[in-house]
């Protein structure tokens, strides 16, 4: 990661300044939209935010609101960002700015100026030679092509105008300490293989990536490699899009500030945090807009973020309240989901929204700066996290289940539901069982691979083995935190992952794979000389898919279950799924916090086995826990405890 003199994001959060003068600030930020407030209310809203315990406010800076005509930007009244930043400084707060160009923020057209979405030269093109529409309320619009030269030029001009205004307010001269590069860059959630982007400039990017091959417009089993490569190219496209936004911001004079990116709340296979992080030169985190009943999804994404988000796992947007067009989230949903995100190992969070605004409900501070019910919980949470030194803690976890895309790309490439986005079919796929949306693929291997991935997770949970979900492309430092790697494989494996597993085994790590020995790579080409297994690799047995207890025993033997901290249900409470325990240690190896999770849709009582003398306090309320053998967990609840 490149160094930024004024600020950077390190393993615990923000690092301000450099050398001996450097200081660290936890990256817990409060979202507030200055342009949606009366400037007279800015001081009250900022004061309320500070009272809750925040040190940083974050805000989108909307291109489409500031631009009044091509090249004309309005910075007056509620749009006076410099004046707002002065207020932020006066309040003793720091600021994170998010200038897009895509911001969403429930703005019409996601914050793009109307002239941009109207311009055919800037619009993404579908395989059907139509514009690509985003059906977002309150108005559908054709999405821009991030490859389009016209769009890039227009957006770069906006980012220059933005940078010029905020330059005097950069830390240490002002409160601006970081910026977010674009927002949820994922081809506008439309990831269907043959949906888009067929804009001429996008096709030029494809040719640079793949050579003289034509971009495929439908699944062709006789040319499966090209189809899978096209799906992989979308990951390249996304990284390249983020790269030019980063370059535009750096070129406008913001290179010395910390930067990060937020991926949307999608399954790990559909976001690629390491590639995005490399593209922007800073960490890439995930957004979370879930309900408590989405426990499984939250846990999966949190475990992925906790292990893969590097150097600091950021939950870049955690819903406090929500937009009116997503499934409604209650205050309890927010408590449980926030707990779930932290249980996975997140060390930075943006609470979105903290100050109320148009097209939102449930924020803990009103537009006039008055605190409302979620405020008390939020203040308690921040106090508790600081008290245990949360950002210095690490989730205890030797085992990593590897997230690979060698099979999932074939699921997308051969989906019968194409061009419907896998983002949509994954939601449908929740009702399909463990194969999820891969059940819609013509190629049966991805569905089977998902069953193995799910079986490995279930078996590890059953065995009480803590594990992470680690991206196959995660930074070397992230890989170094684990000593056993579980990588379910069928006939295909990503060639680079295969090399990585072999290298890890050479260093003494354990590798568990199978049930098949892969002989082909991620494009279904023979592995050839690369087919050699990692040294001492364990192979899961084919029958283990239907023998979770046996698989749990095998994995426990390989990984070793936690012996001093264990969680169980009382014998009179049988259930389908075990309860979940995450243990957090400080740099000296002392356990300072634990998270207990109940995946079931009914309350549970947990029996916590802890070392003698350990005492627990609720991390939010600070109330001591009197009986470790009878901890009540509501349906889909996650409770956080400080350990004394």
């Amino acid at each position, binding site marked *: 990661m490149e160094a930024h003199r004024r600020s950077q994001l390190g393993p615990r959060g923000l690092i301000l300044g450099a050398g001996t003068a450097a200081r660290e600030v936890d990256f817990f930020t409060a979202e507030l939209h200055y342009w949606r407030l009366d400037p007279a209310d800015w001081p009250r809203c900022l004061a309320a935010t500070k009272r809750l315990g925040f040190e940083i406010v974050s805000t989108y800076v909307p291109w489409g609101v500031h631009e*009044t005509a091509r090249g004309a930007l309005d910075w007056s*009244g509620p749009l006076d960002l410099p004046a707002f930043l002065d207020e932020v400084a006066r309040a003793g707060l720091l600021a994170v700015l998010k200038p897009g160009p895509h911001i969403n923020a429930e703005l*019409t057209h996601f914050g793009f100026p*109307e002239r941009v979405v109207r311009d055919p030269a800037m619009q993404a093109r579908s395989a059907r030679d139509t514009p690509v529409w985003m059906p977002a309320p309150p108005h*559908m619009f054709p999405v821009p092509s991030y490859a389009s030269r016209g769009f890039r030029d227009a957006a770069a001009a906006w980012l220059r105008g933005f940078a010029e205004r905020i330059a005097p307010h950069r830390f240490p001269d002002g409160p601006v300490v970081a910026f977010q590069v674009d927002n949820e860059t994922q081809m506008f959630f439309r990831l269907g293989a043959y949906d888009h982007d067929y804009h001429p400039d996008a096709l030029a990017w494809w040719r640079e990536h793949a050579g003289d091959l034509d971009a495929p417009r439908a699944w062709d089993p006789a040319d499966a490699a090209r189809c899978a490569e096209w799906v992989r190219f979308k990951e390249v496209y996304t990284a390249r899009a983020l790269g030019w936004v980063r370059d535009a911001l750096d070129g406008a004079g913001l290179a010395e500030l910390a930067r990060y990116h937020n991926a949307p709340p999608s399954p790990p296979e559909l976001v690629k945090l390491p590639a995005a992080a490399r593209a922007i030169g800073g960490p890439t985190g995930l957004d979370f807009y879930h309900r408590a009943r989405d426990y499984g999804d939250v846990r999966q994404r949190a475990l992925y973020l906790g292990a893969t988000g590097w150097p600091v796992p950021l939950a870049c947007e955690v819903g406090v309240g929500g937009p009116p067009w997503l499934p409604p989230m209650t205050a309890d949903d927010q408590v449980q989901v926030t707990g779930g995100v932290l249980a996975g190992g997140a060390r930075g969070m943006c609470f979105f929204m903290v100050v109320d605004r148009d097209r*939102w409900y449930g924020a803990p501070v009103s537009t006039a700066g008055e605190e409302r019910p979620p405020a008390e919980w939020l203040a308690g949470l921040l106090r508790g996290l600081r008290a245990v030194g949360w950002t210095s803690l690490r989730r205890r976890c030797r085992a990593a289940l590897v997230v690979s895309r060698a099979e999932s790309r074939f699921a997308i490439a051969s989906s019968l539901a194409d061009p419907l986005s896998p983002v949509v079919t994954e939601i449908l796929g929740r009702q399909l069982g*463990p194969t999820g949306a891969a059940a819609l693929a013509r190629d049966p291997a991805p569905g089977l691979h998902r069953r193995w991935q799910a079986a490995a997770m279930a078996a590890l949970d059953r065995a009480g083995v803590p594990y992470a979900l680690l991206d196959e492309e995660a930074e070397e430092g992230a890989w170094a935190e684990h000593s056993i790697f579980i990588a379910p494989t069928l006939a295909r494996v990503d060639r680079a992952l295969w090399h990585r597993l072999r290298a890890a085994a050479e260093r003494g790590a354990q590798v568990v794979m199978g049930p098949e020995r892969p002989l082909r790579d991620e494009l279904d080409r023979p592995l050839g000389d690369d087919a050699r297994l990692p040294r001492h690799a364990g192979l899961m047995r084919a029958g283990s898919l239907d023998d979770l207890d046996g698989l749990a025993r095998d994995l426990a033997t390989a990984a070793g279950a936690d012996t001093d901290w264990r969680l169980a249900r009382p014998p009179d409470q049988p259930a389908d799924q075990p309860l979940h325990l995450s243990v957090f240690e400080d740099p000296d190896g002392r356990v300072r916090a634990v998270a207990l999770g109940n995946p079931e849709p009914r309350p549970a009582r947990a029996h916590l086995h802890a070392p003698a003398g350990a005492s627990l306090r609720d991390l939010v309320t600070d109330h001591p826990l009197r009986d470790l053998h009878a901890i009540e967990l509501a349906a889909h609840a996650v409770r956080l405890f400080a350990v004394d």
Partner: protein
Amino acid sequence: MTGGPGGSRSRLFFDLVLSPDVEMVDLDGRHLASWLGLLVPPGLGEPSWVIAFVEAGRVVHAVRTGQGAVDPATVPLTGTGAAELASARRALGVAFLVVLEVGALGRLHTAIERGLRLDDDYPTQWLAVLRALRELRGAGIWVEPRFLDLIPPLAAEPLARTFELLVPDHSALLAYVFDAQPADVHASVIAVVEGGDIARVTTHLSLADALPGPVLARRWRDQIDRVLTLVAERHADPSIGVFADREAWQRILVGPSDQLGRELSAGNIVLDPAPAWLRGVLGGAQLAAFATRSARSLARFVPGSARRAASGLAQSAQDRLRSAGAHPFALLGFDPIALWHQVQAYYRPPVGSASGPGSGSTRSRKTR
């Protein structure tokens, strides 16, 4: 301008029903969740279904809830006619069977994206989506029960003209549903029409400082004037207000077609203000419902000629509603009340079972 001042929005949009710049403030998340519970048919959340992909008339791939991909040979589809689809769904024992020709979803996307216009408002854009779905209904996409048949042949202009006709500009539309125990506002919405389209949406949260929800709910029938005054002061003069007891609301969803009239008579629902057209529609609908019910109950006891007379009475009442130039929905080209009666079947028995409204043997199916 959306979400605040300034901005580059031109006024090229045809303002029809919903402003692209609609302001949504003082939203109560609990109320939004309650509306979802009140309006989404029970059981639709997790129904059982099979999706079968067909190519050259043969099922080539199938997925089933809870099982993922299943052997295509297990889908006993002999054709895509109504009877064959119904028979296949019954044999599969699922609430819904969706049959998709391979490539049909691509054609659907094309039809939708060629029909969408940036100058249209959101409801009009959705009409383009529905129009595309209607086009592919039976021509690559089949759903059993025949959900897609419920899509009305609605066009944008009649919708906009009907909206203009029925809802005065610079006015507010209100809907409140109350819980009795503990007394509170269960759900509320206030929509403000400005410049001919809905420009602001809010909830009781925008009035709660002056009239807390529990206080209002304890004696809501006596407090309606107070609500209307507050809405007039803070938003716009109310033009239509619906205030309902929650249980009454649910009885209307599942009850016979004259249930609304009964609840109005009993004071469990109050319409205030109720414009003349709304009173007319309700009066006509009640008459039609009464006549239809009478025809059914008489059927067992009276000769055929008398039954035909009773049915004729019901039909003529409905025809009069439809054909009279003064009928408020005349411009739409379909009768929304009749559509509601079809949709209502999905609120009655649990949809998640094979004996739900989609099954071949239930009364609701016969109704459709």
